[in-house]
Protein backbone atom coordinates (compact mmCIF):
# COMPACT_ATOMS: atom_id res chain seq x y z
CA UNK A 1 0.00 0.00 0.00
CA UNK A 2 1.29 3.42 -0.86
CA UNK A 3 1.96 5.63 2.17
CA UNK A 4 -0.76 8.15 1.34
CA UNK A 5 -3.33 5.39 0.91
CA UNK A 6 -2.37 4.07 4.30
CA UNK A 7 -2.61 7.56 5.76
CA UNK A 8 -6.10 7.98 4.31
CA UNK A 9 -7.20 4.67 5.78
CA UNK A 10 -5.77 5.39 9.18
CA UNK A 11 -7.37 8.82 9.13
CA UNK A 12 -10.72 7.36 8.17
CA UNK A 13 -10.78 4.75 10.91
CA UNK A 14 -9.42 7.22 13.46
CA UNK A 15 -12.34 9.47 12.56
CA UNK A 16 -14.79 6.68 13.19
CA UNK A 17 -13.30 5.94 16.57
CA UNK A 18 -13.37 9.62 17.51
CA UNK A 19 -17.02 9.86 16.48
CA UNK A 20 -17.75 6.76 18.51
CA UNK A 21 -16.04 8.17 21.58
CA UNK A 22 -17.95 11.38 21.00
CA UNK A 23 -21.31 9.62 20.98
CA UNK A 24 -20.32 7.70 24.07
CA UNK A 25 -19.28 10.86 25.90
CA UNK A 26 -22.55 12.52 24.93
CA UNK A 27 -24.23 9.85 27.09
CA UNK A 28 -27.18 9.37 24.78
CA UNK A 29 -27.25 5.71 25.66
CA UNK A 30 -26.11 4.03 28.84
CA UNK A 31 -22.94 2.02 28.80
CA UNK A 32 -24.68 -1.35 28.91
CA UNK A 33 -26.08 -0.78 25.47
CA UNK A 34 -23.41 1.47 24.00
CA UNK A 35 -19.93 0.82 25.33
CA UNK A 36 -17.01 3.17 24.81
CA UNK A 37 -14.13 2.27 22.48
CA UNK A 38 -11.99 1.88 25.55
CA UNK A 39 -14.18 -0.82 27.08
CA UNK A 40 -14.18 -2.69 23.79
CA UNK A 41 -10.41 -2.39 23.62
CA UNK A 42 -10.19 -3.82 27.11
CA UNK A 43 -12.24 -6.82 26.05
CA UNK A 44 -10.04 -7.27 23.00
CA UNK A 45 -6.92 -7.07 25.13
CA UNK A 46 -8.36 -9.66 27.45
CA UNK A 47 -9.16 -11.98 24.56
CA UNK A 48 -5.62 -11.57 23.30
CA UNK A 49 -4.02 -12.08 26.69
CA UNK A 50 -5.75 -15.41 27.34
CA UNK A 51 -5.25 -16.42 23.68
CA UNK A 52 -8.91 -17.38 23.35
CA UNK A 53 -9.23 -14.85 20.58
CA UNK A 54 -6.44 -16.36 18.52
CA UNK A 55 -7.78 -19.80 19.02
CA UNK A 56 -11.22 -18.59 17.91
CA UNK A 57 -9.83 -16.84 14.86
CA UNK A 58 -7.78 -19.86 13.89
CA UNK A 59 -10.69 -22.25 14.21
CA UNK A 60 -13.01 -20.02 12.24
CA UNK A 61 -10.49 -19.30 9.51
CA UNK A 62 -9.77 -22.96 8.98
CA UNK A 63 -13.46 -23.71 8.51
CA UNK A 64 -13.79 -20.68 6.30
CA UNK A 65 -10.98 -21.72 4.00
CA UNK A 66 -12.44 -25.16 3.46
CA UNK A 67 -15.99 -23.88 3.02
CA UNK A 68 -14.93 -21.11 0.70
CA UNK A 69 -12.79 -23.51 -1.30
CA UNK A 70 -15.80 -25.72 -1.87
CA UNK A 71 -17.97 -22.72 -2.72
CA UNK A 72 -15.45 -21.38 -5.20
CA UNK A 73 -14.94 -24.68 -6.95
CA UNK A 74 -18.66 -25.43 -7.03
CA UNK A 75 -19.65 -21.89 -7.93
CA UNK A 76 -17.23 -21.70 -10.83
CA UNK A 77 -18.38 -24.97 -12.32
CA UNK A 78 -22.04 -24.20 -11.77
CA UNK A 79 -21.78 -20.63 -13.02
CA UNK A 80 -20.02 -21.64 -16.22
CA UNK A 81 -22.46 -24.46 -16.79
CA UNK A 82 -25.41 -22.16 -16.30
CA UNK A 83 -23.99 -19.62 -18.69
CA UNK A 84 -23.22 -22.16 -21.38
CA UNK A 85 -26.10 -24.60 -21.16
CA UNK A 86 -29.48 -22.92 -21.15
CA UNK A 87 -31.20 -26.00 -19.73
CA UNK A 88 -28.94 -25.97 -16.69
CA UNK A 89 -29.74 -22.31 -16.20
CA UNK A 90 -33.46 -22.95 -16.44
CA UNK A 91 -33.43 -25.80 -13.95
CA UNK A 92 -30.56 -25.78 -11.49
CA UNK A 93 -30.03 -22.06 -12.02
CA UNK A 94 -33.45 -21.15 -10.78
CA UNK A 95 -33.03 -23.49 -7.85
CA UNK A 96 -29.76 -21.84 -6.85
CA UNK A 97 -31.42 -18.48 -6.47
CA UNK A 98 -34.18 -20.07 -4.45
CA UNK A 99 -31.72 -21.87 -2.20
CA UNK A 100 -29.85 -18.67 -1.65
CA UNK A 101 -32.85 -16.93 -0.16
CA UNK A 102 -32.98 -19.41 2.68
CA UNK A 103 -31.29 -18.01 5.79
CA UNK A 104 -28.46 -20.08 7.23
CA UNK A 105 -30.44 -20.61 10.37
CA UNK A 106 -32.86 -22.71 8.37
CA UNK A 107 -30.03 -24.83 7.04
CA UNK A 108 -28.84 -25.76 10.47
CA UNK A 109 -31.45 -28.49 11.07
CA UNK A 110 -30.56 -30.09 7.76
CA UNK A 111 -26.85 -29.68 8.38
CA UNK A 112 -27.27 -31.34 11.74
CA UNK A 113 -29.32 -34.09 10.16
CA UNK A 114 -26.75 -34.78 7.47
CA UNK A 115 -23.51 -34.09 9.22
CA UNK A 116 -24.30 -34.16 12.91
CA UNK A 117 -22.42 -31.88 15.23
CA UNK A 118 -19.21 -31.87 13.31
CA UNK A 119 -17.02 -29.36 11.59
CA UNK A 120 -18.54 -30.63 8.36
CA UNK A 121 -21.90 -29.21 9.37
CA UNK A 122 -20.41 -25.76 9.85
CA UNK A 123 -18.48 -26.06 6.61
CA UNK A 124 -21.67 -27.04 4.82
CA UNK A 125 -23.50 -23.98 6.08
CA UNK A 126 -20.49 -21.84 5.15
CA UNK A 127 -20.23 -23.22 1.64
CA UNK A 128 -23.98 -22.90 1.05
CA UNK A 129 -23.77 -19.28 2.14
CA UNK A 130 -21.01 -18.42 -0.30
CA UNK A 131 -21.59 -20.57 -3.34
CA UNK A 132 -24.34 -18.47 -4.80
CA UNK A 133 -22.33 -15.28 -4.95
CA UNK A 134 -19.56 -17.09 -6.81
CA UNK A 135 -22.03 -18.84 -9.11
CA UNK A 136 -24.02 -15.81 -10.09
CA UNK A 137 -20.97 -13.62 -10.66
CA UNK A 138 -19.33 -16.27 -12.76
CA UNK A 139 -22.56 -16.67 -14.67
CA UNK A 140 -22.94 -12.95 -15.27
CA UNK A 141 -19.28 -12.59 -16.21
CA UNK A 142 -19.39 -15.44 -18.71
CA UNK A 143 -22.72 -14.34 -20.18
CA UNK A 144 -21.35 -10.87 -20.79
CA UNK A 145 -18.15 -11.90 -22.50
CA UNK A 146 -17.72 -10.09 -25.77
CA UNK A 147 -18.97 -12.76 -28.22
CA UNK A 148 -16.14 -12.09 -30.63
CA UNK A 149 -13.62 -13.55 -28.14
CA UNK A 150 -15.56 -16.78 -28.13
CA UNK A 151 -15.92 -16.72 -31.88
CA UNK A 152 -12.22 -16.10 -32.37
CA UNK A 153 -11.30 -18.97 -30.05
CA UNK A 154 -13.73 -21.37 -31.68
CA UNK A 155 -12.48 -20.28 -35.04
CA UNK A 156 -8.96 -21.17 -33.99
CA UNK A 157 -10.07 -24.62 -33.05
CA UNK A 158 -10.75 -24.38 -29.31
CA UNK A 159 -13.22 -27.05 -28.16
CA UNK A 160 -15.56 -26.43 -25.23
CA UNK A 161 -13.09 -27.61 -22.59
CA UNK A 162 -10.26 -25.47 -23.95
CA UNK A 163 -12.68 -22.62 -24.45
CA UNK A 164 -13.54 -22.65 -20.76
CA UNK A 165 -9.95 -22.62 -19.61
CA UNK A 166 -8.44 -20.33 -22.22
CA UNK A 167 -11.27 -17.89 -22.84
CA UNK A 168 -14.31 -18.05 -20.58
CA UNK A 169 -12.48 -17.93 -17.27
CA UNK A 170 -9.85 -15.34 -18.21
CA UNK A 171 -12.37 -13.16 -20.05
CA UNK A 172 -14.79 -13.24 -17.14
CA UNK A 173 -12.03 -12.94 -14.58
CA UNK A 174 -12.73 -9.39 -13.45
CA UNK A 175 -16.21 -10.56 -12.50
CA UNK A 176 -15.13 -13.89 -11.15
CA UNK A 177 -12.80 -12.05 -8.79
CA UNK A 178 -15.72 -9.97 -7.68
CA UNK A 179 -17.58 -13.22 -7.07
CA UNK A 180 -14.72 -14.53 -4.95
CA UNK A 181 -14.70 -11.32 -2.99
CA UNK A 182 -18.37 -11.58 -2.25
CA UNK A 183 -18.09 -15.30 -1.70
CA UNK A 184 -15.43 -14.56 0.88
CA UNK A 185 -17.64 -12.08 2.71
CA UNK A 186 -20.59 -14.42 2.74
CA UNK A 187 -18.51 -17.42 3.72
CA UNK A 188 -17.04 -15.45 6.58
CA UNK A 189 -20.51 -14.44 7.63
CA UNK A 190 -21.68 -18.00 7.14
CA UNK A 191 -18.98 -19.50 9.30
CA UNK A 192 -19.64 -17.06 12.11
CA UNK A 193 -23.37 -17.58 11.82
CA UNK A 194 -23.01 -21.34 11.85
CA UNK A 195 -20.67 -21.31 14.82
CA UNK A 196 -23.12 -19.11 16.58
CA UNK A 197 -25.88 -21.64 16.06
CA UNK A 198 -23.81 -24.74 16.56
CA UNK A 199 -22.05 -23.03 19.44
CA UNK A 200 -19.00 -25.02 18.73
CA UNK A 201 -15.78 -23.08 19.18
CA UNK A 202 -14.63 -20.30 16.83
CA UNK A 203 -15.35 -16.59 16.72
CA UNK A 204 -19.07 -17.16 16.30
CA UNK A 205 -19.06 -19.05 19.55
CA UNK A 206 -17.35 -16.13 21.29
CA UNK A 207 -19.89 -13.78 19.77
CA UNK A 208 -22.69 -15.93 21.07
CA UNK A 209 -21.20 -15.99 24.55
CA UNK A 210 -21.19 -12.19 24.45
CA UNK A 211 -24.78 -12.10 23.36
CA UNK A 212 -26.00 -14.65 25.85
CA UNK A 213 -24.31 -12.75 28.63
CA UNK A 214 -25.67 -9.45 27.33
CA UNK A 215 -22.08 -8.30 27.20
CA UNK A 216 -22.31 -5.65 24.48
CA UNK A 217 -18.66 -4.73 24.60
CA UNK A 218 -17.63 -8.33 23.98
CA UNK A 219 -20.09 -8.53 21.10
CA UNK A 220 -18.67 -5.37 19.57
CA UNK A 221 -15.12 -6.53 20.17
CA UNK A 222 -15.77 -9.74 18.24
CA UNK A 223 -17.61 -7.86 15.52
CA UNK A 224 -14.57 -5.66 15.12
CA UNK A 225 -12.31 -8.67 14.86
CA UNK A 226 -14.59 -10.18 12.22
CA UNK A 227 -14.65 -6.93 10.29
CA UNK A 228 -10.94 -6.38 10.72
CA UNK A 229 -10.15 -9.74 9.20
CA UNK A 230 -12.61 -9.00 6.39
CA UNK A 231 -10.96 -5.67 5.66
CA UNK A 232 -7.49 -7.17 5.87
CA UNK A 233 -8.24 -9.96 3.45
CA UNK A 234 -9.90 -7.54 1.06
CA UNK A 235 -6.93 -5.20 1.17
CA UNK A 236 -4.22 -7.81 1.02
CA UNK A 237 -5.67 -10.46 -1.23
CA UNK A 238 -8.47 -9.18 -3.40
CA UNK A 239 -7.40 -5.60 -3.94
CA UNK A 240 -4.08 -6.83 -5.31
CA UNK A 241 -5.53 -9.36 -7.70
CA UNK A 242 -8.08 -6.82 -8.82
CA UNK A 243 -5.47 -4.14 -9.41
CA UNK A 244 -3.36 -6.53 -11.40
CA UNK A 245 -6.20 -7.70 -13.60
CA UNK A 246 -7.46 -4.17 -14.15
CA UNK A 247 -4.03 -2.92 -15.12
CA UNK A 248 -3.62 -5.71 -17.59
CA UNK A 249 -6.97 -5.02 -19.16
CA UNK A 250 -6.11 -1.35 -19.45
CA UNK A 251 -8.91 -0.36 -17.10
CA UNK A 252 -6.68 1.58 -14.77
Amino acid at each position, binding site marked *: MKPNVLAKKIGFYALIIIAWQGIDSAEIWPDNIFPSPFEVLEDLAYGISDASLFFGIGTSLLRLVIGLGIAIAGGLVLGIFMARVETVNQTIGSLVLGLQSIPSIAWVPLAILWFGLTDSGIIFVTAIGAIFAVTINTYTGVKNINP*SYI*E*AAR*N*MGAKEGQLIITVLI*PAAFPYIISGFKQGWAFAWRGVIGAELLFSFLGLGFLLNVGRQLNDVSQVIAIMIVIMGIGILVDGVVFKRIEDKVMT*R*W*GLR
Partner: protein
Amino acid sequence: MGKLEAKNIEKYFKHDGKQLKTLDGINLNVNDGEFVCIVGTSGCGKSTFLRTIAGLETPDSGKILLDGQPLSDTGPDRIMVFQEGALFPWLNVRDNVEYGLKVAGIPKEKRNEISHRYLDMMQLTQFATSYTYQLSTGMKQRVAIARALVMEPDVLLMDEPFAALDPQTRDLLLVEMQLIWQKTKKTIIFVTHNVAEAVVLGTRVLVFSHRPAKIKKEVEIDYQRPRLTDDENLLPYQKKILAELRPEVKK
Protein backbone atom coordinates in the same frame (compact mmCIF):
# COMPACT_ATOMS: atom_id res chain seq x y z
CA MET B 1 -7.34 -29.73 -48.91
CA GLY B 2 -9.05 -26.43 -49.54
CA LYS B 3 -11.75 -26.71 -52.15
CA LEU B 4 -14.63 -24.62 -50.99
CA GLU B 5 -18.18 -24.53 -52.34
CA ALA B 6 -21.00 -22.23 -51.30
CA LYS B 7 -24.37 -23.45 -52.50
CA ASN B 8 -27.21 -21.01 -52.68
CA ILE B 9 -26.49 -19.30 -49.36
CA GLU B 10 -29.32 -17.14 -48.02
CA LYS B 11 -29.27 -15.14 -44.83
CA TYR B 12 -31.81 -12.85 -43.17
CA PHE B 13 -31.42 -10.49 -40.23
CA LYS B 14 -34.11 -8.86 -38.20
CA HIS B 15 -34.18 -5.06 -38.10
CA ASP B 16 -36.94 -2.99 -36.61
CA GLY B 17 -39.20 -6.04 -36.63
CA LYS B 18 -38.70 -6.70 -40.33
CA GLN B 19 -36.60 -9.43 -41.91
CA LEU B 20 -33.76 -7.90 -43.90
CA LYS B 21 -32.44 -10.10 -46.66
CA THR B 22 -28.66 -9.94 -46.54
CA LEU B 23 -27.32 -12.83 -48.59
CA ASP B 24 -29.40 -13.57 -51.64
CA GLY B 25 -28.54 -17.08 -52.75
CA ILE B 26 -24.80 -16.89 -53.17
CA ASN B 27 -23.16 -19.63 -55.25
CA LEU B 28 -19.42 -19.85 -55.32
CA ASN B 29 -16.78 -22.44 -56.10
CA VAL B 30 -13.25 -21.82 -54.92
CA ASN B 31 -10.63 -24.26 -55.99
CA ASP B 32 -7.88 -25.44 -53.75
CA GLY B 33 -5.09 -22.87 -53.77
CA GLU B 34 -7.13 -20.03 -55.22
CA PHE B 35 -6.83 -16.49 -53.92
CA VAL B 36 -10.30 -14.95 -54.15
CA CYS B 37 -10.94 -11.30 -53.29
CA ILE B 38 -14.36 -9.90 -52.52
CA VAL B 39 -15.28 -6.25 -52.85
CA GLY B 40 -18.62 -4.60 -52.17
CA THR B 41 -20.25 -1.61 -50.55
CA SER B 42 -20.34 -1.03 -46.83
CA GLY B 43 -22.99 -3.21 -45.22
CA CYS B 44 -23.62 -5.33 -48.29
CA GLY B 45 -22.91 -8.64 -46.58
CA LYS B 46 -19.23 -9.45 -47.11
CA SER B 47 -18.48 -10.17 -43.47
CA THR B 48 -21.65 -12.17 -43.11
CA PHE B 49 -20.62 -14.35 -46.01
CA LEU B 50 -17.13 -14.90 -44.59
CA ARG B 51 -18.57 -15.68 -41.17
CA THR B 52 -20.88 -18.21 -42.77
CA ILE B 53 -17.95 -19.99 -44.37
CA ALA B 54 -16.13 -19.95 -41.02
CA GLY B 55 -19.12 -21.64 -39.43
CA LEU B 56 -19.89 -18.69 -37.16
CA GLU B 57 -23.19 -17.86 -38.84
CA THR B 58 -25.78 -20.44 -39.87
CA PRO B 59 -27.28 -19.71 -43.29
CA ASP B 60 -31.08 -19.66 -43.52
CA SER B 61 -30.78 -21.83 -46.55
CA GLY B 62 -28.01 -23.36 -48.63
CA LYS B 63 -24.81 -24.99 -47.48
CA ILE B 64 -21.05 -24.74 -47.45
CA LEU B 65 -18.89 -27.67 -48.54
CA LEU B 66 -15.18 -28.10 -47.90
CA ASP B 67 -13.63 -30.68 -50.18
CA GLY B 68 -17.12 -31.96 -50.79
CA GLN B 69 -17.98 -32.39 -47.10
CA PRO B 70 -20.80 -30.21 -45.77
CA LEU B 71 -19.66 -27.98 -42.90
CA SER B 72 -21.67 -27.07 -39.87
CA ASP B 73 -19.27 -25.97 -37.20
CA THR B 74 -16.11 -23.95 -36.91
CA GLY B 75 -12.82 -25.70 -37.39
CA PRO B 76 -9.12 -24.92 -37.44
CA ASP B 77 -9.15 -25.73 -41.15
CA ARG B 78 -10.77 -22.33 -41.79
CA ILE B 79 -9.06 -19.54 -39.90
CA MET B 80 -10.43 -16.04 -40.01
CA VAL B 81 -8.89 -12.61 -39.53
CA PHE B 82 -11.77 -10.70 -38.00
CA GLN B 83 -12.60 -7.26 -39.25
CA GLU B 84 -12.67 -6.05 -35.68
CA GLY B 85 -9.56 -7.60 -34.21
CA ALA B 86 -11.07 -9.74 -31.45
CA LEU B 87 -7.68 -9.99 -29.78
CA PHE B 88 -7.70 -11.34 -26.25
CA PRO B 89 -7.02 -8.49 -23.83
CA TRP B 90 -5.85 -10.88 -21.09
CA LEU B 91 -2.98 -12.16 -23.23
CA ASN B 92 0.04 -10.24 -24.37
CA VAL B 93 0.88 -9.91 -28.03
CA ARG B 94 2.96 -13.06 -28.23
CA ASP B 95 0.43 -15.19 -26.39
CA ASN B 96 -2.30 -13.86 -28.63
CA VAL B 97 -0.35 -14.89 -31.68
CA GLU B 98 0.40 -18.31 -30.23
CA TYR B 99 -3.14 -18.96 -29.07
CA GLY B 100 -4.22 -21.25 -31.90
CA LEU B 101 -0.96 -23.19 -31.71
CA LYS B 102 -1.40 -23.71 -28.00
CA VAL B 103 -4.93 -24.96 -28.50
CA ALA B 104 -3.57 -27.35 -31.11
CA GLY B 105 -1.07 -28.66 -28.58
CA ILE B 106 2.11 -27.44 -30.24
CA PRO B 107 4.97 -27.42 -27.69
CA LYS B 108 6.16 -24.11 -26.32
CA GLU B 109 9.49 -23.93 -28.06
CA LYS B 110 8.03 -24.60 -31.46
CA ARG B 111 5.33 -22.03 -30.78
CA ASN B 112 7.85 -19.38 -29.83
CA GLU B 113 9.80 -20.02 -32.96
CA ILE B 114 6.75 -19.68 -35.20
CA SER B 115 5.36 -16.62 -33.44
CA HIS B 116 8.74 -14.96 -33.55
CA ARG B 117 8.83 -15.29 -37.30
CA TYR B 118 5.43 -13.73 -37.84
CA LEU B 119 5.85 -10.99 -35.23
CA ASP B 120 8.97 -10.04 -37.07
CA MET B 121 7.13 -9.94 -40.37
CA MET B 122 4.53 -7.67 -38.76
CA GLN B 123 7.26 -5.52 -37.20
CA LEU B 124 5.94 -6.17 -33.75
CA THR B 125 8.87 -7.96 -32.12
CA GLN B 126 9.45 -4.97 -29.89
CA PHE B 127 5.88 -5.25 -28.58
CA ALA B 128 5.78 -9.01 -27.94
CA THR B 129 5.03 -8.56 -24.26
CA SER B 130 2.67 -5.59 -24.59
CA TYR B 131 -1.03 -5.95 -23.93
CA THR B 132 -3.64 -4.99 -26.48
CA TYR B 133 -4.67 -1.74 -24.81
CA GLN B 134 -1.09 -0.58 -25.32
CA LEU B 135 -1.26 -0.92 -29.08
CA SER B 136 -2.41 1.41 -31.81
CA THR B 137 -5.26 0.25 -34.01
CA GLY B 138 -2.98 -0.69 -36.88
CA MET B 139 -0.73 -2.64 -34.54
CA LYS B 140 -3.70 -4.60 -33.25
CA GLN B 141 -4.67 -5.38 -36.79
CA ARG B 142 -1.21 -6.72 -37.48
CA VAL B 143 -1.35 -8.91 -34.39
CA ALA B 144 -4.66 -10.30 -35.63
CA ILE B 145 -3.11 -11.09 -39.00
CA ALA B 146 -0.15 -12.81 -37.39
CA ARG B 147 -2.48 -14.81 -35.15
CA ALA B 148 -4.23 -16.21 -38.21
CA LEU B 149 -1.14 -16.76 -40.35
CA VAL B 150 0.65 -18.91 -37.76
CA MET B 151 -2.15 -21.45 -38.08
CA GLU B 152 -1.43 -22.18 -41.74
CA PRO B 153 -4.98 -23.39 -42.33
CA ASP B 154 -6.39 -24.98 -45.46
CA VAL B 155 -8.59 -21.97 -45.96
CA LEU B 156 -7.67 -18.50 -44.78
CA LEU B 157 -10.53 -16.03 -44.45
CA MET B 158 -9.44 -12.41 -44.20
CA ASP B 159 -11.92 -9.62 -43.53
CA GLU B 160 -10.36 -6.27 -44.46
CA PRO B 161 -7.16 -7.10 -42.64
CA PHE B 162 -5.22 -4.09 -43.92
CA ALA B 163 -7.91 -1.46 -43.39
CA ALA B 164 -6.12 0.37 -40.59
CA LEU B 165 -2.65 0.33 -42.11
CA ASP B 166 -0.75 3.13 -43.74
CA PRO B 167 0.07 2.65 -47.45
CA GLN B 168 3.70 1.76 -46.81
CA THR B 169 3.04 -0.96 -44.28
CA ARG B 170 0.22 -2.17 -46.45
CA ASP B 171 2.46 -2.44 -49.51
CA LEU B 172 4.96 -4.48 -47.55
CA LEU B 173 2.27 -6.84 -46.37
CA LEU B 174 0.79 -7.14 -49.82
CA VAL B 175 4.08 -8.53 -50.98
CA GLU B 176 4.38 -10.80 -47.96
CA MET B 177 0.88 -12.16 -48.52
CA GLN B 178 1.67 -13.05 -52.08
CA LEU B 179 4.87 -14.78 -51.04
CA ILE B 180 3.12 -16.76 -48.34
CA TRP B 181 0.38 -17.76 -50.73
CA GLN B 182 2.81 -18.78 -53.44
CA LYS B 183 4.81 -20.81 -50.97
CA THR B 184 1.96 -22.58 -49.18
CA LYS B 185 -0.64 -22.63 -51.97
CA LYS B 186 -3.44 -22.33 -49.46
CA THR B 187 -6.94 -21.22 -50.36
CA ILE B 188 -7.51 -17.61 -49.36
CA ILE B 189 -10.70 -15.59 -49.36
CA PHE B 190 -9.98 -11.95 -48.82
CA VAL B 191 -12.53 -9.19 -48.27
CA THR B 192 -11.39 -5.65 -48.94
CA HIS B 193 -12.80 -2.30 -49.89
CA ASN B 194 -9.56 -1.33 -51.55
CA VAL B 195 -9.85 -2.28 -55.20
CA ALA B 196 -6.13 -1.85 -55.86
CA GLU B 197 -5.44 -4.29 -53.07
CA ALA B 198 -7.95 -6.78 -54.48
CA VAL B 199 -6.36 -6.62 -57.89
CA VAL B 200 -2.86 -7.09 -56.52
CA LEU B 201 -3.76 -10.07 -54.43
CA GLY B 202 -6.51 -12.01 -56.17
CA THR B 203 -6.52 -14.64 -58.81
CA ARG B 204 -10.14 -13.67 -59.07
CA VAL B 205 -12.11 -10.67 -57.72
CA LEU B 206 -15.82 -10.95 -56.90
CA VAL B 207 -17.97 -7.85 -56.84
CA PHE B 208 -20.90 -8.15 -54.45
CA SER B 209 -24.07 -6.22 -55.15
CA HIS B 210 -25.53 -4.04 -52.45
CA ARG B 211 -27.90 -5.57 -49.90
CA PRO B 212 -29.07 -8.26 -50.55
CA ALA B 213 -25.64 -9.48 -51.63
CA LYS B 214 -25.26 -11.46 -54.81
CA ILE B 215 -22.16 -12.05 -56.86
CA LYS B 216 -22.64 -9.34 -59.43
CA LYS B 217 -19.45 -9.79 -61.37
CA GLU B 218 -16.33 -11.93 -61.41
CA VAL B 219 -13.05 -10.57 -62.73
CA GLU B 220 -10.11 -12.93 -63.37
CA ILE B 221 -6.71 -11.31 -62.77
CA ASP B 222 -4.27 -13.21 -64.87
CA TYR B 223 -1.00 -11.40 -64.32
CA GLN B 224 2.49 -12.20 -63.12
CA ARG B 225 3.50 -12.11 -59.44
CA PRO B 226 4.56 -10.58 -57.22
CA ARG B 227 2.39 -7.68 -58.26
CA LEU B 228 2.81 -4.20 -56.89
CA THR B 229 0.08 -1.62 -56.21
CA ASP B 230 1.59 0.98 -58.49
CA ASP B 231 1.86 -1.37 -61.43
CA GLU B 232 0.09 0.48 -64.25
CA ASN B 233 -0.89 -2.77 -65.94
CA LEU B 234 -3.30 -3.50 -63.15
CA LEU B 235 -5.24 -0.26 -63.66
CA PRO B 236 -7.62 -1.67 -66.30
CA TYR B 237 -8.71 -4.38 -63.89
CA GLN B 238 -9.31 -1.75 -61.22
CA LYS B 239 -11.36 0.39 -63.58
CA LYS B 240 -13.50 -2.57 -64.55
CA ILE B 241 -14.23 -3.42 -60.98
CA LEU B 242 -14.89 0.16 -59.94
CA ALA B 243 -17.32 0.50 -62.80
CA GLU B 244 -19.29 -2.44 -61.43
CA LEU B 245 -19.13 -1.09 -57.91
CA ARG B 246 -20.10 2.51 -58.52
CA PRO B 247 -23.83 2.05 -59.23
CA GLU B 248 -24.20 -0.05 -56.10
CA VAL B 249 -23.75 2.81 -53.66
CA LYS B 250 -26.58 5.00 -54.76
CA LYS B 251 -29.01 2.10 -54.66
